[in-house]
C-alpha cells in the first residue's frame, strides 16, 4: 500500500462516516417529535453532508482517477464503503438517534482536534471547518442525552436501552490497522487507539450527568471502516440514497 492509497482510504473513512450518518439523521426530516428538534436534526444532517463533500472530494483528488465526491457517494456499492458501523445502524427511537449522535460526536470532536495539526494542509483545513460544526453537534447531543437520561422514568429506560444497543459499536472507532499506522507515521492523522482515554473521559462525564452507567464491556463489532463486513443495514440505506443516480445516471439539477 502506497501512502496515497492509504490517504485515499483515510479520506473515504471520514467521508463515508459523515455521509452515512448524515443520511441516517436526514431520515428524521418531517418526523421528529417537535418542530424545533426536526430543524436541528436537519441542520446536523446538512453539516455532515457538507463535510462529506470535502472528504470525498479530497479522496477523489488523491485517487487521481477522475472520480468526484458525487461519483464516490452515489456509484459505489456497499463493499466499497468505509464508514463506521455505528453510523449505519437504524435510528430507532429519538433517544437512540441522539445517543448514537452523541457517541459519534464525541469521537468526531476528539479526532478532528488532532486533525487540526495534520501535516497535510488539505486535511487540517477540512478539520478546521468541520470542528466548529461538530463542537455545536456535541453540545446539542450531549445536552439531550443528559435531559433524556436524567428525565422521566421512561426516557431514562429508553436511553439505557439505546446505550446498551450502541455501545458495542464504539470500539471500532479505536481499532487501528495498517492505514492508520501509515497515516500516523506520516503525521497526517492520529493513531486511533491513542484517543480512547480522552473519549472515555468525555463520554463518561456526560453519561454520569445523565445518570447512565457507562458499560464496561470492550466487545466491539468491526468491519465498517476497513470494509471487511458491514451490517445488513447499509445496503438498504444505499438503495434509498443512490437510486436516482442509478436510475438516471448523471442526472443533476
Amino acid at each position, binding site marked *: 500500500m502506497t501512502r496515497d492509497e492509504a490517504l485515499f482510504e483515510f479520506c473515504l473513512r471520514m467521508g463515508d462516516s459523515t455521509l452515512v450518518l448524515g443520511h441516517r439523521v436526514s431520515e428524521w426530516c418531517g418526523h421528529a417529535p417537535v*418542530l*424545533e428538534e426536526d*430543524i436541528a436534526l436537519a441542520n446536523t444532517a446538512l453539516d455532515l453532508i457538507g463535510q462529506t463533500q470535502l472528504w470525498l472530494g479530497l479522496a477523489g483528488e488523491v485517487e487521481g482517477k477522475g472520480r468526484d465526491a458525487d461519483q464516490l457517494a452515489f456509484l459505489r456499492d456497499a463493499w466499497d464503503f468505509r464508514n463506521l458501523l455505528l453510523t449505519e445502524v437504524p435510528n430507532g427511537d429519538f433517544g437512540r438517534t441522539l445517543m448514537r449522535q452523541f457517541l459519534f460526536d464525541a469521537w468526531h470532536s476528539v479526532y478532528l482536534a488532532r486533525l487540526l495539526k495534520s501535516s497535510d494542509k488539505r486535511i487540517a483545513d477540512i478539520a478546521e471547518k468541520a470542528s466548529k460544526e461538530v463542537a455545536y453537534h456535541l453540545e446539542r447531543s450531549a445536552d439531550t442525552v443528559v435531559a433524556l437520561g436524567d428525565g422521566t422514568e421512561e426516557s431514562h429506560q429508553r436511553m439505557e436501552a439505546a446505550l446498551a444497543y450502541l455501545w458495542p459499536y464504539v470500539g471500532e472507532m479505536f481499532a487501528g490497522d495498517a492505514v492508520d499506522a501509515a497515516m500516523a507515521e506520516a503525521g497526517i492523522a492520529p493513531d486511533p487507539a491513542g484517543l480512547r482515554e480522552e473519549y472515555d473521559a468525555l463520554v463518561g462525564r456526560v453519561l454520569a450527568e445523565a445518570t447512565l452507567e457507562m458499560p464496561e464491556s470492550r466487545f466491539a463489532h468491526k468491519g465498517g471502516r476497513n470494509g471487511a463486513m458491514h451490517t445488513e443495514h447499509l445496503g438498504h440505506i444505499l438503495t434509498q440514497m443512490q437510486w436516482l443516480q442509478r436510475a438516471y445516471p448523471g442526472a443533476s439539477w
Partner: protein
Amino acid sequence: MKNEWPLWEVFIRGQHGMSHRHVGSLHAPDAEMAIKNARDVYTRRNEGVSIWVVEARHIAASSPSDKGPLYEPSESKVYRHPTFFDIPDEVGAM
C-alpha cells in the same frame, strides 16, 4: 397541557442591525435549549450575531380593547411628527 414545553419569544440582532428584533417564537424546555433551538430555527441563513429569548408569559402586553384610549389621542397631533423641518442632506438617514 402540562407536558408541553413553554413558549419562548426570540429576538435576534442581525449582522448590521442596531438592535434585537423579534423574529418569532418556539418551544423549549429551558432557556439554554431555547437559545439552541433559536440558533437552529432562526439563524440558519446567517441572520444573526446575538440571540435573546424570553419566556412568552413574562411579556406584558397592552390590551387590544384599550386601543382607543391608548392610541387615538395621538392621531390628531401632527405637530408631534418632525416633518416641518428641512433636514440637511449631510445629516444622512435619521
